[in-house]
């Protein structure tokens, strides 16, 4: 892996992906007055005739997208992650139930969003969309992977939800390594036999930092960028359950129902090994500087290190 660089936020990757997707004339973009934030604005500038402003009306946007999908278009509809939730039933009944290929992007996901406070910090989106049949759920960690994975959505059947985030983060990929990414396949960033850390979104960087710290203690970690929450890469889970014997999950999302929840469901019914979860522990966020907030809520590399040590101890004790 080359030296990481600070890149754009994952929402920037979404914006770039839409421009690449424009080559397919079926692609249309829907916005709900947040195009400048979700970065669909770049598509609008280049393709105003294929961009539809829906105003501040998310429920209508979801069903307009559904109608367009039924008419042969491939709609990409975006707003803040939290506001997609307002239209949850529209997504469930109007898009997913008939299996229409509408691709929803919720930007500004997670506590990482920062100073706007708890009303803007979606911490349950991955859980609710994961519960919908036929839905693909993606949460990339940086701009390059967001761009690559968004472009791949064109090739999948049925609806999808992609969560992007507001703030810039350290890149986990470069222009070459991003080409290895594939929806539904966990991306192994580091390999070690003591514990497997599965992270998504902004917590992937923290997982890599934790791995560095732990290696100084002689603990070797596998770190996986689990950018696809659904469908879950159970082949990888199965393999790492054998080689590592204990897991940690790390996500800027509630520990209820997200990546940790998905891992827990699989482990419980397939391979009951220890899992420690790092995530938002059944609470709302608050306003604050992103770094301060992540510490306040417990979304840090230190928290991942602690969780890894506990998971390893549980494995050794069993």
């Amino acid at each position, binding site marked *: 892996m080359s030296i990481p660089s600070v890149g754009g936020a994952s929402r920037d990757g979404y914006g770039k992906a839409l421009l690449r997707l424009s080559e397919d004339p079926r692609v*249309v973009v829907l916005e709900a007055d947040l195009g400048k934030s979700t970065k669909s604005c770049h598509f609008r500038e280049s393709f105003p*005739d*294929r961009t*539809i402003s*829906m*105003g501040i*009306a998310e*429920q*209508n946007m*979801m*069903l*307009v*997208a*559904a*109608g*367009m*999908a*039924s*008419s*042969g*278009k491939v*709609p990409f509809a975006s707003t803040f992650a939290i506001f997609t939730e307002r239209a949850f*039933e*529209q997504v469930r*009944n*109007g898009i997913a*139930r*008939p*299996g229409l290929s509408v691709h929803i992007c919720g930007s500004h996901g997670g506590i990482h969003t920062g100073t706007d406070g708890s009303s803007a910090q979606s911490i349950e989106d991955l859980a609710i969309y994961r519960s919908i049949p036929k839905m693909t759920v993606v949460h990339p960690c940086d701009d390059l992977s967001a761009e690559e994975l968004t472009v791949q959505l064109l090739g999948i059947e049925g609806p999808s939800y992609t969560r992007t985030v507001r703030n810039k983060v350290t890149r986990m990929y470069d222009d070459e390594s991003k080409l290895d990414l594939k929806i539904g396949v966990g991306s192994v960033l580091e390999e070690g036999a003591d514990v497997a850390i599965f992270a998504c979104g902004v917590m992937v960087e923290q997982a890599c930092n934790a791995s560095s710290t732990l290696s100084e203690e002689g603990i070797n970690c596998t770190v996986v960028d689990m950018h696809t929450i659904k469908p879950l890469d159970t082949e990888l889970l199965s393999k790492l359950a054998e080689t590592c014997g204990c897991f940690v999950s790390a996500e800027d999302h509630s520990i209820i129902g997200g990546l940790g929840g998905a891992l827990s469901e699989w482990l419980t019914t397939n391979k009951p090994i220890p899992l420690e979860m790092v995530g938002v522990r059944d609470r709302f966020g608050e306003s604050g500087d992103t770094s301060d907030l992540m510490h306040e809520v417990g979304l840090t590399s230190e928290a991942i290190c602690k969780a890894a040590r506990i998971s390893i101890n549980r494995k050794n004790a069993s």
Partner: protein
Amino acid sequence: MDGAETDRISELEEMARRCRMDIVKMTHAAGAGHPGGSLSAIDCMVALYGTTLRFDTNNPDWEDRDRFVMSKGHASPAMYALLHQMGVLEESDLLSFRKLGSVCQGHVDMNWTDGVDFSAGSLGMGLSFGLGCALSAKMDSSERRIWVMLGDGETQEGQIWEAVMAANYHNANNLRVIIDRNRIQNDDFMGVQMEIGDIGGKFESFGWNVREVDGHSMSDIVDAISWAETNELGPTAIIANTIKGKGVSFMENNPEFHGKAPNNEEVEIAMGELS
């Protein structure tokens, strides 16, 4: 009205009568379903399919067909009765209504039934879906037109007004709506539950073309549909004043038959009245 026109109206009225019998039969067979709102909407639906709507019963997925979006999806018996009378569905399909594996799902579903363009069941969503179809047609420079059947009760949903606003803003002049104004919703009369008032005026205030008709006068409905087809500026709404349960005496204007099937005794009376 000349002789040919009179004959055409009589044919449509006869088709609506046969549809009404299907509606009663299939809800009775299922022991469930929504006869009241099906009987109120059926005249408008027959008028639409019998005159202007472009579709091909041998190729229900024809890309450039006009779309009919049944937003009040619980009135599915009206849709299935119509598809039966047009030869898309068999009598046995109607009699399997609401049973496991049936092509006649409880609420209309585009993935289960040929000739159904929208998966409904949750009120307030169909107009937005129709708008999506309308905007796509315009992008494709297609002549296809989009008709949406709304219940008056579902105009209580906020999403309807999001779509009403957006349709005019985006100049969806290929979008037409019929509102089945039967004044009864699930629990009771709208006047008891939540009266919407002047629906037409509300649509007009958002820039829509609006006409009000007697939703059980076949000639008036046909006229209004033909008027709607000539509007080139903005979207169009037809407010069809109807009677819930129309055609079956004990169901007419009776909130009880919003979502209740006729029993063995009632089905005999109903079929007698419709024969």
